[in-house]
Structure formats: C-alpha cells, structure tokens
C-alpha cells in the first residue's frame, strides 16, 4: 500500500430503541477484526462506518478525511456481507461490473476491468453464470471482486464466513487468505467467531454491550481479559472471587475482586504454588478432550483434560500458581 490507510472513530454514539452504542473511539491502521457476541452492536458500527446509519454523536475519519456526513456512495468503501448479497437479477459479469457503471468509464473499459479482476480471482469462466448456481467459495470471490473492482480504500467484511457450516467456513477462510495478496486496501472484519477473529488479523477489538471492552494485539486481547463479562465471552470457565480463592488456600493478588483462572493454568503435573485435591463431580466428553467439574470444598472448577489422561479415582490432584490468575474488573 502506497499511502497509509486508516479509519478512525472519535466518540461515536448511536441510540436505536433500547440499545445504545458507544462512545466508540477506535483507530484502525492495519487489518483489523471487530469481535463481539450477537447484539453487541457490531452491525450498527459497520453500518455507521459504511454510512448507512448516521451517528448521533462523534466523528468518523477515513484516511484522515472526515466522512461523518458523507453519503455511502461517496465513501469509497467496499462491503461484503455474510451472505454476499449478490444481485440475483444480474449474472456474474454484471454483478462485478455494477459499480463501474457509476464511474466515468466506457463500456470497453468496464469490460476490461471486470475481466481483469475476474481472472485474478479465478472466476473468469463464470462470467455468464447465474449467481444462484455458484458455490459458496465462488460467491465469495464474486462478492470480493465486485467490491474491489471499484478500487475502495477500505474493505468492510461483515461475518463473511458465517453463512456456511464449519468445514465450509474453514475452506472459505483459506480461500480468502489466498486472495488477500490482491487486496490493496485496509480490511476490517466483523465477526462473532473467536477462532475466525484470531486467524484473520493481529489487531482485534472486542465490542460488548455497545462498548469497546478490549483493543490491541490478538494474544493480549484473548489472553488477558479485563472484565468478568469479557472473560466469560472469551470462554474462561473459572472466574473466582477473592473469597473463593481464600477458601481454596490460594492467596488472592488483591483482597477483593474477581480473577480468571485459565484452563491451562490448572496444573495436573504436580507443579504449582498451591496444591489442591478435589472431587470430580461430573465428566463430559468433548470431541478431543474430557471436561471435568472439580469440587474443592464447595468451589467448583472446570478443567478440560486430554482424552488419554488416566483418572486414578473419584478425586484429582492439581496445582495453581496465584501469579497466573488474571485480575478482572
């Protein structure tokens, strides 16, 4: 990319019925994922950036230029939705060339541009096809080609891999990553899928209840949740109060508050500052692991263990280091 591409949001707020989004402050300068559960406000934020919803407060900047009041058709942002939203009354070629009709280009130029990008995306042989007859991967390519042929500076992707099953999703992600080298624009992806979020960008923000609750490098965001809600959203099962830690004879890092104990920090190898023995209350078979619920003096902990682990009886010994607890707000 020759110029530095960026999207910035400053104090963006929007109220829709009972739901309030913001204030959102965000700076995006490299491939970025906005992660959040359903109802967090991801789509509202997507539509605010794209210009379909006007924020009640705040400003939006694209490459340094304020675009808050700019109409969607003037923003030069490409968008790809979850289900691709290919125009059903147009064939592949007409879909890809749709946006070029609104630019000052001759029919020949349009034709050349469309064929060029179609070849690049390996869909040149599908030009006259009905979009309904395409596979998921082909639809994705057409949707991307349609968004990119007009040369957007920013590409917004709203849950682009969610419309298919697990296997298809992995394949679509793989295909998308192979197309990435052609994307001369800043990619912002919105998803509720954590695995997808982790895979697609190094910079991540978590949107929860209309607010950005975490923002930064993906390992930092995933590994160090800041609040109880985010820890729960990210799948931390063991969230313990300081009282519960004291009951377990673990010295809490602070006298009150909550702490997340990551699954891998419940040590079964005999190490750990505090060694504990608990009763296994329940076993649950997962695909590759066994989940056990351990009761230690009334405090319940969940631990996912390798399926080959040999249980020696109804009790289990494990260790915990208090400095590996994650303090939560």
């Amino acid at each position, binding site marked *: 990319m020759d110029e530095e591409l960026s999207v910035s949001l400053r104090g963006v707020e929007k109220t829709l019925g009972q739901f309030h989004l913001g204030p959102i402050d965000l700076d995006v300068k490299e491939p970025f994922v906005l992660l959040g559960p359903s109802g967090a406000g991801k789509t509202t934020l997507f539509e605010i950036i794209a210009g*379909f919803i006007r924020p009640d407060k705040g400003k939006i900047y694209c490459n340094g230029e304020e675009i808050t009041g700019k109409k969607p058709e003037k923003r030069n942002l490409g968008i790809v939705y979850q289900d691709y939203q290919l*125009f059903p*009354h147009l064939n592949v070629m007409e879909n890809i060339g*749709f946006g070029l009709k609104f*630019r000052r280009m001759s029919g020949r130029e349009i034709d050349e541009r469309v064929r060029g990008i179609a070849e690049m995306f390996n869909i040149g042989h599908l030009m006259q096809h009905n979009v*309904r007859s395409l596979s998921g991967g082909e639809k994705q390519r057409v949707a991307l080609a*349609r968004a990119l042929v007009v040369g957007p500076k920013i590409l917004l992707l709203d849950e682009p891999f969610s419309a298919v099953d697990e296997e298809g999703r992995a394949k679509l992600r793989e295909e998308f990553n192979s197309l990435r080298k052609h994307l001369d624009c800043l990619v912002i992806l919105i998803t509720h899928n954590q695995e997808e979020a982790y895979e697609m960008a190094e910079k991540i923000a978590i949107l929860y209840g209309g607010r950005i609750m975490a923002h930064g490098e993906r390992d930092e965001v995933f590994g160090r949740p800041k609040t109880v809600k985010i820890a729960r959203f990210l799948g931390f099962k063991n969230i313990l109060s300081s009282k519960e830690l004291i009951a377990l004879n673990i010295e809490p890092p602070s006298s009150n508050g909550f702490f997340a104990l990551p699954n891998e920090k419940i040590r079964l190898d005999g190490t750990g500052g505090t060694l504990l023995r608990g009763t296994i209350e329940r076993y649950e078979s997962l695909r590759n692991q066994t989940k056990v619920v351990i009761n230690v003096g009334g405090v319940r902990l969940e631990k996912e263990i390798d399926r080959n682990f040999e249980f020696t009886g109804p009790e289990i010994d494990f260790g915990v280091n208090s400095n590996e607890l994650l303090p939560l707000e």
Partner: protein
Amino acid sequence: MRKNLFFATFFLLSVLLLAFIVIPILVLYSFTSVTGLFSNFLNGDFLNVLEVTFVAGLISTAILAILGIPLAYMMAREHFPGKNIIQAIVDLPLVIPDTVAGLIIFLTFYSGGVLGAPLSHAGLNFVDTLPGIVVAMMFVGAPFIINTARAGFTSFDPKLERVAMSLGAGRFRTFLSVSLPLNLEGIWNGLVITWAKGVASFGSIIIIAYFPVIAPTYIYSQFLLSGIPASAVAAGGFLLITLAIFIVSRLTASRLTKWTRS
C-alpha cells in the same frame, strides 16, 4: 391415515370455495350463447364502453403506479412516526362502501368541490367525464398497488440496496437498478389487480360519471332496460375479455419472476 384425512378435509373445503366462485360464472354463461357472446364484438356501443373502461383503467393504474410505488417503497423500507396511521389511510378505501366512495369522489371533484373547483377553473372537469371515472378508479384501486408493491419490496434483503450504494449508486439509481427490478413481479401483480379493481368498479364511479358509460354501468342499464338475457350477453362478453387480460397478465408475472430469478 390421519395425514389422508387432513388432506381430504382441506381438499374438500378448497373445492367448495372454488365451486362457489366458478358456479355463478358458469351460470352466467348458461344464459348466453357463443353467437350471443360474439355479437357483442360487432356492437359499436359495447366496443365503445369497453374502450372507455379499459382506457380509464389504464390511465388510473398508470397514475397510481407513479404515485403509489414510491409510497409502497417508503412504507416497506423506512421507519417513521405515524407509519401505522398512513397504513390505515392507505387501507381506508377498502372499508368504505363503493357508493360512499362514489359520493366522496363526487363531493370532492364536482365543479364546486374542494379539488373540483380549482381544477375546473383550469379546464379539467370530472362530472360525466373520463377524468371523473379515472379519479374514482384511483380512489378504490390505490390500496391494491400500494400494499402489493410494499409486500414485494419487503421480500428481498435491503442489504442488496446497501451494497449498490457502497458501489457508488445514489438512492435513485439504487432504486432503479436494484429495488425496482427485484420487485417487478410484485409491482406487476399490484398493477394488474389495481387495473382489475378499477374496471370492475361501479358504485364508486356511477355517481360522478354515469357518462361516458363504462362496462359495469352498461351491464346494469341493460339489465334495467332489456332484462336478463341482454345483460347476461354483455356481462359474459366483458368477463371473457377481462379474464383473458387477467390470465395473460398472470403469465407475464410468472415470466417476470423467472427473468428476475434467472
């Protein structure tokens, strides 16, 4: 067994209703003959009546298309205060008796009426004129085009329009290049029903425009002046043409569907 009983019950009830519609039409044709029906088309009066009826129907439908499709789109896509009230206004002509509609139209459009007075000054008169028939047809037909087109606009994802806008199409171009083509079938069906409602109207038209005579008025006067056989022949001829147009329109709708989906 239970499944068979379910389908048998529903089949029987459906057949009863269809018979209720078809039998009276067949009864009508039992009062006429093929030669009688074709004699209609050699009758200058009848042909004039058909021309007036269908032309007025086309004009009213065309005006309703221009005015009604934007309203249908707004009702389908936008959220605004008072939307329910607007929907109630749209549906009003459906609950107003035809003769009351006729009276309302007359009082509004006669040369002393709220709209009739200024328009008559501009040279547009409605009493016993084609424009009178057109406004009456528009009044009773408006809910049909608005409601049918509205349902069509809600049948496809508004994200398609958003994609078009993100690609550089303004609202008008998005409407013309995405919303309209994707709702061709809904709009066409709405126009056909609106036209059919217009040409079949009698009570709403007769008060403002007994003349020029439209088909329902002609059939009624035949019934009063010449009795059942003469009115049945006229009614049979009118119905034949209307049904033919309706069938062709329905076939066109299915072609439009195939075209937009192919």
